């Protein structure tokens, strides 16, 4: 057991899997010698050699196109896209190829690839270092989408993703790489070492994909969130004094519907929170699922707190980012309903 921040936990997951399985290979832009712009792959090339951990040309479509081919050969590629904002050049390879290969070939070929990509805002990243494109991928049948919210989950989920024989998009909220961020940008960041989720086993363990976690039990309202927003929602619950049950979804596809439904049937109210823009965002799917499965238990309309339907602005970071004040207002609103 060691104390790790999220970067160290991800690095540890890669280290464990490179050590366990000779077919695991790790690559991407600046991933090899340098160890990644966020240090997620630091030391791995030195430990495992250049044919296991290596740098690639700046070509996201090429990175994922070659990753699929390696997967077809029998390797287990873990590719990094430097920012989720830059995953779009590889969209065709993900949607048309990785996601459909098993289906279209009648199970003859598949793409056991894991695509790591730092995502999310709150870092003054502006338009192309802040996006949360998960909803674009959850709409694609054949892809699994995972977003961890803490070091312990990040390692266990990443190991499960690498071992999974389906393509997994693994979004890492970079705002919480070093410590949980609750949206109070005016306060100093608390490092992960002050929180129990930073206690991470050094060796192998998995957290099954498709299982949500109850980040905070409560009885008044169900709060559905993932990534950085889990911490914002926890803060909003504490600050409003409303007994919210905060569910960290962890995996968006396949979704853990049972945990969601059980909670909403208990509380009768639901607030959905994500950084991504609202229209057709993953919150719309969550809202529809809750409405379909919990209609007779709902005591108020489902609320969504999300990024606005605008590109992510630089100067208006904190007006855009759904902070604890906005989440708190939604919590109060559903309680009045």
């Amino acid at each position: 057991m060691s104390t790790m921040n999220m970067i160290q936990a991800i690095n540890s997951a890669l280290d464990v899997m490179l050590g366990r399985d000779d077919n695991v290979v790790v690559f991407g832009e600046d991933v090899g010698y340098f160890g990644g712009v966020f240090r997620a792959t630091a030391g791995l090339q030195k430990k495992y050699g250049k044919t296991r951990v290596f740098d690639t040309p700046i070509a996201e479509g090429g990175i994922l196109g070659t990753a699929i081919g390696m997967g077809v050969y029998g390797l287990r590629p873990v590719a990094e896209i430097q920012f989720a904002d830059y995953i779009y050049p590889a969209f065709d390879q993900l949607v048309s190829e990785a996601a459909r290969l098993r289906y279209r070939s009648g199970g003859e070929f598949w793409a056991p690839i894991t695509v790591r990509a730092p995502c999310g805002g709150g870092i003054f990243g502006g338009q192309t270092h802040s996006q949360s494109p998960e909803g674009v991928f959850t709409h694609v049948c054949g892809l699994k989408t995972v977003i961890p919210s803490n070091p312990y989950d990040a390692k266990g989920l990443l190991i499960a993703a690498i071992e999974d024989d389906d393509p997994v998009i693994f979004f890492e909220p970079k705002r919480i790489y070093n410590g949980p961020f609750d949206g109070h940008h005016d306060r100093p960041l608390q490092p992960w070492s002050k929180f129990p989720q930073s206690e991470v086993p050094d060796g192998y363990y998995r957290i099954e994909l498709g299982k949500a976690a109850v980040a905070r039990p409560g009885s008044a309202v169900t709060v559905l969130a993932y990534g950085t927003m889990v911490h914002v929602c926890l803060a909003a619950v504490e600050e409003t004094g409303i007994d919210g049950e905060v569910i960290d979804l962890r995996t968006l596809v396949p979704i853990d519907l049972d945990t969601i439904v059980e909670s909403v049937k208990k509380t009768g109210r639901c607030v959905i929170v994500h950084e991504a823009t609202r229209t057709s965002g993953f919150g719309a799917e969550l809202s529809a699922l809750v409405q379909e499965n919990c209609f007779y238990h709902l005591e108020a309309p489902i609320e969504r707190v999300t990024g606005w339907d605008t590109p992510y602005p630089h100067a208006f970071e904190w007006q855009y980012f759904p902070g604890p004040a906005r989440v708190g207002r939604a919590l109060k609103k559903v309680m009045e309903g």
Partner: protein
Amino acid sequence: MAQHSSSAPSAAPAARTPLRLHIPEPPARPGDKPDFSYVRVPPAGSLPRPPIDAPERALREYAEGLIRVLDDDGRAVGEWDPKLDAETLRQGLRAMMLTRTFDDRMLRVQRQGKTSFYIKSTGEEAVAVAQAYALDPDDMLFPSYRQQGLLIARGHSLVDMMCQIFNNTRDRLKGRQLPIMYSVREKNFFSISGNLGTQYPQAVGWAMASAMKGDTRIAASWVGEGTTAEPDFHHALTFASVYQAPVILNVVNNQYAISSFQAIAGGERATFAARAIGYGIPGLRVDGNDFLAVYAVTRWAAARARANLGPTLIELFTYRAAAHSTSDDPSAYRPLDESQYWPLGDPIERLKQHLILRGEWSEAQQQALAKALDEQVRADLKEAESYGTLGTPPASPKTMFEDVFKHMPPHLIKQRQEMGY
């Protein structure tokens, strides 16, 4: 308003020439006399065969030239002659003829409404068959949709191919794929995708993996000249070059991408083989209707890849003699009889002529073989049709939900139940 002191000198507007946008056109349109004057056909045997370890810079004449072995009389000439024995050539001729017979029969089947769609490879049979012969059976193929000859040359079951085309109860792809989008793992033939060019970087990745594992197998991939405009073409060449991947990247230049002449793909000012030069990859241009030349060049590229000398790009210069697909009518954009004027002739006729010249074949044998192949295809068709044609449900609709993921997640089980299964 403030004036910029460093403004550049400029001519008076009146002195400027209006700019004009250049839109390439093919040399002949419907009603015109076919015109292939843009095709330069050097004599067979005029290019020497370089050593496989020749550096890319020593090979640049091959990107502009045209490697040919069979001359106008059907003789094999020059250093590129692979000196194949007659039996191998007869087998190659047979595989090309079988490919054409299969194509012709499948077109009729589509016209009869027994399937929705078909794509012929008429005129391009040497590309697929000769390349399949030049590669080892365990080399991995990442084809586009017009290399059915690869499967036929590797001895794959025509019945299996027909069942995929019919989406019938024996369709190994369970009715999920458009006809001709084959996938045949046991023949190392990768699943065909409708998205153009995606297989190109995938082949490079497969080849990189083979090299990472110290394997001896190589990969080959095919795109048409139209697809070279896709970004995946660039990705594949960049990655193949950077990692010196053991891969053969083939560009089948059949002059047309549906209705677009190859000039629209960028072929007006440079060959497609010449694209490779900028990536430091040898680019070799070969007469795509010359079985011996295609075989020899592919063999050379394979030997180079196997010797850890890196990738090769081969431009196979040919002509798409048939319509793009059963949904296409080429008489709407090119002269109806254009294929008859194609200066490189027909690959089957040219190999036949060569074998006859060698005393290893005759017109009578040719006709007997054509008849036998037609009978074989008819018999296979009868068997395939016994499993149903379009409109016969392939297995149960519940299989529609399988293989989206390795294990069916709850939401798909629920949707399957909603459908009644």
